[in-house]
């Protein structure tokens, strides 16, 4: 307790300096956390991808559609247990700028493929039974103020007219940091409507979501699937769900890398500032450290005091920054909701932020502590005289 009190008193000896250093660390951690949160939202979904799910798409590009008939052929591949079509719909609700992912799927298979989606049994039954029924994520419901049973009309540039769906189920993702912003509906409804209109897109599928019995055989099964469609009019490319999601964000990889680097650069800048503040504080007190050494404190003990002071300042700043992060994220998530529907501070971001705080404290103290612990007593005492 005695030493803790000494460390705290010394850390706040120059109140303005301590306050500014804490504020600097808090702002740095805040900026770091915000940038990390934005990157997390950007690559959202990748980490929650399942190992036992594959995605089969056209080999030429992500936008090449596949014939419905592929479903049976994929299902026949050894190791494949489930296949659901996923037809990208490109729909929007009222405001074209407020985008969210929406697909036509085979609801029964899709829900079996995604056990992480938690839905009350009653809603599940209602969704499966209603041809115009749709299932939406909890966050999406909240975003648009929808309620189960609401009829919502989507527009899309891919198909003509208004498309009205009835929300029958609301899912909650078992993964805490999942976006929960999906909107899925019966692919058959899409197919039959397009067929009636005589569209050539009727019965076409964007991708097939494929369930397999053993995640460790994913590569072999993927090869098998693609082998079946070699030399066919539309060749396929099958990959794990994670690889599929990653491909979606690959185009922005350079930007993501840039943002990540920027977030660490912010930490680097505040490290220099904190180290300078600690250096100044130690330089001013070299005489005092000489006195402590004279009284019998070892160089290691002095290093411990300095480390304690530095950690006090940096961890306080870090805590302040991390506490403010959810508020700032909440404040900007509205204006950014069109780009990042689920801007959420993850536990990992908090953990990295806390680690950054520790690193900041330890690294800022390193040189001043070394200097104080190695200083000769006689020289230090001469500074006082």
């Amino acid at each position, binding site marked *: *307790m*005695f*030493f803790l*009190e*000494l460390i705290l*008193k*010394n850390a706040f*000896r120059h109140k303005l300096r301590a306050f500014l250093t804490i504020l600097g660390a808090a702002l740095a951690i805040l900026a770091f956390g915000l940038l990390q949160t934005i990157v997390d939202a950007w690559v959202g979904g990748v980490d929650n991808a399942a190992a036992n799910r594959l995605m089969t798409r056209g080999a030429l590009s992500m936008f090449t559609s596949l014939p419905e008939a592929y479903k049976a052929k994929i299902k026949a591949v050894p190791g494949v247990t489930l296949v659901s079509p996923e037809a990208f719909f490109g729909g929007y609700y009222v405001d074209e700028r407020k985008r969210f992912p929406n697909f036509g799927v085979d609801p029964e298979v899709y829900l079996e493929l995604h056990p992480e989606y938690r839905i009350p049994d009653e809603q599940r039954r209602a969704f499966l039974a209603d041809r115009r029924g749709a299932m939406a994520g909890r966050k999406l419901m909240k975003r648009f103020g929808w309620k189960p049973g609401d009829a919502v009309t989507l527009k899309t540039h891919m198909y003509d007219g208004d498309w009205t769906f009835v929300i029958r189920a609301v899912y909650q993702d078992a993964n805490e940091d999942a976006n929960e912003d999906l909107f899925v509906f019966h692919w058959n409804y899409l197919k039959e409507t397009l067929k009636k209109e005589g569209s050539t897109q009727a019965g076409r599928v964007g991708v097939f979501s494929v369930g397999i019995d053993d995640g460790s055989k994913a590569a072999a099964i993927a090869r098998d699937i693609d082998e079946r469609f070699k030399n066919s009019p539309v060749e396929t490319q099958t990959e794990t769900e994670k690889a599929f999601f990653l491909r979606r964000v690959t185009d922005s990889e350079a930007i993501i890398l840039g943002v990540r680097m920027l977030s660490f650069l912010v930490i680097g800048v505040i490290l220099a500032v904190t180290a300078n503040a600690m250096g100044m504080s130690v330089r001013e007190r070299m*005489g*005092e450290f000489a*006195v*402590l*050494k*004279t*009284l*019998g*404190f*070892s*160089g*290691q003990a002095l290093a411990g005091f300095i480390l304690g002071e530095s950690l006090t300042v940096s961890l306080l700043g870090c805590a302040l920054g991390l506490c403010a992060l959810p508020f700032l994220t909440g404040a900007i998530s509205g204006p950014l909701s069109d780009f990042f529907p689920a801007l959420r501070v993850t536990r990992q971001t908090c953990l990295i932020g806390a680690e950054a705080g520790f690193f900041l404290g330890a690294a800022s103290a390193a040189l001043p502590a070394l200097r104080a612990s190695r200083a*000769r*007593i*006689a020289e230090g*005492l001469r500074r*006082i*005289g």
Partner: protein
Amino acid sequence: MAEPLIRIEHAFKSYRRGDRITPVLEDISFDIACGEFLALVGPSGSGKSTLLNLIAGIDVPDSGKILFLGQDIGQLSENELAAWRSAHVGFIFQFYNLIPVLTAQQNVELPLTLTGLSGRERKEHAARALAAVNLSDRMDHRPSQLSGGQQQRVAIARAIAADPALLVADEPTGDLDRESAEDILRLLENLNARLGKTIVMVTHDQRAASAAHLTRRLNKGVLDVLP
């Protein structure tokens, strides 16, 4: 004949600045008996403070020995020497050198944190030491709230709190007015006479030197014995 508390044998000390070596102490040998009150005097630059640093284990001689009750402290590692100082030496500086963020009681308690005493025992020891220097009523004051003489008394309380055998004082009255200086000297005389503390004091002040039993003069690093 009783073993001296400190025996200095042919101690040499010099300082190197770049290529230049400046000798500070040359072939110093003498004993300090237990319970002695010794004043080291001499002009500025004569090596008094350097000799005091050697006696107190703050510095080590280039050659020669400093023996404390027969133990050569020059052979101790830096950490061992720190532990030795905390156990056997109390320090009184010209500018008091109290920790400004701590109260008088906490300043006195500071060296006791190295002794293994409990928090309560430390507080008791500190209170007794402050009582010995008549500062019981200033325990919660910070150094900035005390006069120079009071700060020096806190420094003396800090020096005696762990009950060391040896007190070293470097110009203890150098920064004080006449009245406070006399006060401090009386206190040192009392510590020597009543508690049997061995005191080595560096001073420029003739009056301060006269409070000691024995005075040794250093001149350009060489020791003279005064009558």
